[in-house]
């Protein structure tokens, strides 16, 4: 049996994602032409041979439940273990009827689940992370260095809202932790941590007894001298989706072959629920350049630098530039869209023009008619 157990946190809302999270949690936001954000972490876990995964839920998780099902997409529909959904239990002591204030509070609420974990090590992850990471290597590095906690981080200087940053010593150990600074400071945490089940349980108990709830503030920053904190620096593609702008820029990067080769590495495929759409049809006179086209689309117009999810219809005379169209979007005759993201089943009526800017892409809410 593989020695890793996965826990994915899906309780934090990301107001920066605006309309994209009106009807769903960040974990189930569509990304990359046919995926949901959580597909990436679940596929990372699957590729590392991990079959036991808990998803800690809170908030508007209906869409996420539909997507996860019994986990068979990631081969996690198992007789023992497999994918376990952990909704908030009606227990006022631990969650007070409000949103979890931090990971430790969320974990305290599912303590009995943690006790039953069959593996020696646990990987904790947020559900807004897009990455294709060899988790088995992270565990090896963790064991090799005798770390208490290994944190995956990136040297990328990009600033992300509400991020955690680390100052690293030359040997890779973490010497200082910065929670939500106003400017980047050193390596940015990808909020992906590996630690032993024993340590996790003792941290949950210790913090619950002391009214502490934040993993990064109370454990990483608070115990930085006491625990051996190691970094695992990932220099490949990684996106933490916390604002529409971040979402848009990171999506558009997928049009670069080198980024796709990294994120969709054949050795570690990204698995998504089957959409049951037929192949896409590009009509005579259509014009499609530098774009990702999922299945089930019908294209008669002109499409450049776009990402089309399954079942999108682009009628004649349409000019789509730098746009992201979610599943079932229908763009009628003669429409012009630039720097626009349309959510699922949006219809843009004939002749309309919507022009955003890369610094502020227009997002059209799910099911709207423009």
């Amino acid at each position, binding site marked *: 049996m593989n020695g890793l157990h996965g826990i994915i946190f899906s309780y934090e809302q990301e107001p920066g994602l605006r309309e994209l999270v009106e009807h769903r949690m960040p974990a189930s936001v569509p990304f990359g032409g046919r995926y949901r954000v959580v597909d990436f972490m679940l596929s990372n876990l699957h590729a590392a041979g991990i079959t036991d995964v808990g998803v800690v839920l809170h908030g508007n998780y209906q869409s996420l439940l539909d997507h996860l099902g019994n986990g068979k997409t990631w081969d996690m529909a198992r007789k023992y273990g497999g994918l376990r959904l952990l909704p908030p239990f009606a227990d006022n002591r631990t969650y007070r009827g409000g949103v979890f204030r931090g990971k430790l509070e969320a974990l305290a609420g599912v303590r009995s689940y943690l006790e039953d974990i069959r593996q020696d090590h646990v990987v904790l992850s947020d559900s807004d992370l897009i990455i294709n990471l060899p988790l088995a290597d992270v565990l090896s590095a963790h064991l090799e260095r005798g770390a208490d906690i290994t944190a995956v981080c990136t040297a990328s200087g990009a600033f992300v809202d509400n991020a955690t940053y680390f100052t690293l010593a030359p040997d890779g150990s973490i010497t200082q932790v910065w929670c939500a600074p106003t400017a980047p400071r050193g390596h940015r945490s990808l909020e992906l941590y590996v630690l032993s089940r024993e340590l996790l349980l003792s941290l949950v108990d210790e913090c619950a007894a002391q009214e502490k709830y934040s993993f990064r503030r109370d454990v990483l920053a608070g115990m930085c001298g006491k625990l051996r904190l190691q970094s695992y620096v990932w220099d490949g593609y990684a996106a933490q989706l916390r604002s529409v702008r971040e979402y848009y820029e990171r999506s558009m990067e997928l049009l670069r072959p080198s980024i796709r080769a990294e994120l*969709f590495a054949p050795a570690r495929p990204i698995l998504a629920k089957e959409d049951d759409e037929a*192949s896409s049809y590009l009509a005579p006179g259509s014009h499609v350049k530098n774009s990702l086209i999922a299945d089930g689309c019908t294209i008669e117009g002109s499409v450049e630098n776009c990402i089309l999810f399954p079942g999108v219809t682009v009628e004649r005379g349409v000019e789509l530039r730098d746009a992201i169209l979610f599943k079932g979007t229908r763009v009628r005759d003669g429409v012009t869209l630039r720097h626009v993201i349309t959510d699922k089943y949006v219809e843009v009526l004939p002749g309309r023009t919507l022009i955003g800017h890369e610094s502020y892409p227009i997002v059209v809410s799910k099911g709207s008619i423009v």
Partner: protein
Amino acid sequence: MKKECIAMLLAGGQGSRLYVLTENMAKPAVPFGGKFRIIDFPLSNCANSGIDTIGVLTQYRPLELNRYIGNGQPWDLDRADGGVHILPPYQSAGGATWFKGTANAIYQNIGFVDMYEPDYVLILSGDHIYKMDYAALLAHHKHTHADCTIAVMEVPWDEASRFGIMNVDSEDTITEFEEKPKEPKSNLASMGIYIFTWKKLREYLIADEKDPASSNDFGKNIIPAMLGAGEKLSAYRFEGYWKDVGTLDSLWDANMDMLAQGSGLNLLDKDWPIYARVESEPPAYLDETAEVAHSVITRGTVVEGGVHNSVLSQCCTVAEGAQVEYSILMPGAVVERGAKVSYAILGERARVGENARVGASPEDTPPEDWGITVVGPEAEVKAGHVLGADRMLNREGKETVR
């Protein structure tokens, strides 16, 4: 547990007229229409018609087919009771025999059918492209109190002599069956889709097996025997798209029908979805230099060159400067830089090397020399090589004229 109606899908055919495409797989496993395989059509029709128990009779090179069907999950046929079952020929106390004919294949699996105690059995074949509601066919069968109902469709009179033709009375009761008649009296062609009342069929299968002269075939033996004995056989008229894709030409034609608006074959229609088992791949990518028009593309495909009037399955590559026209690229086919592919079928993972030429347009070729060119699965056309019209290449590099 008892089921009202179960389906038996005849999927053992070699499909020898598909030549290199079926050297290593059974015909029903041959890719079709970008994302699908031929067998997806009867399986999806069953799923959409509420038939949840299917026996798939395999014989010729079943490996690919078995792997593809698996537990039946893509077609929602992974059921606790019923579901899809692969039925290979098996050894009995009296020795092992291959399926001698279509009727013998069902005869050998009477035990399987009996397990579900069905009132009716639907017999399907794995080489047709069509969307049909079998529930309507069953309702017709029950309504007419027939012993056997045969799905038929009107074909052009000048083509009728290529089909099994049903002559019917005013109530569409079948009075006569003629296999490929020289002078057809009707243009109602059998589609090879039958519903039998199981009790009746069971009797006729056992009787047919005892006749050493019989070729144990539904069309040749069972149907004529039932007609001769005065059983009630009814014709069910089907309107809509239907094509037998048993030959390279008809397979190419049916794929091209996806592009023709008036053909009646609309796979993007959401009301009657066709399901498939497909790997999870990122969306197709068309780069700055791609020129794609009047074509079908599927996930995982990357196009840098020109693609016109063609069907591209998943994970195909058309490199920069390559041209593909009037062709079918099966999953994983690769056309390298500067190569040109016209009026051709490229099998799974076939590769056309740089600047190679495959196939030719009928305008550039004398009619007697022209035909669809076929590169078999895993076959490679070497860089700069010319594989002319009407030729075939297999994975061992053997080139033949069709």
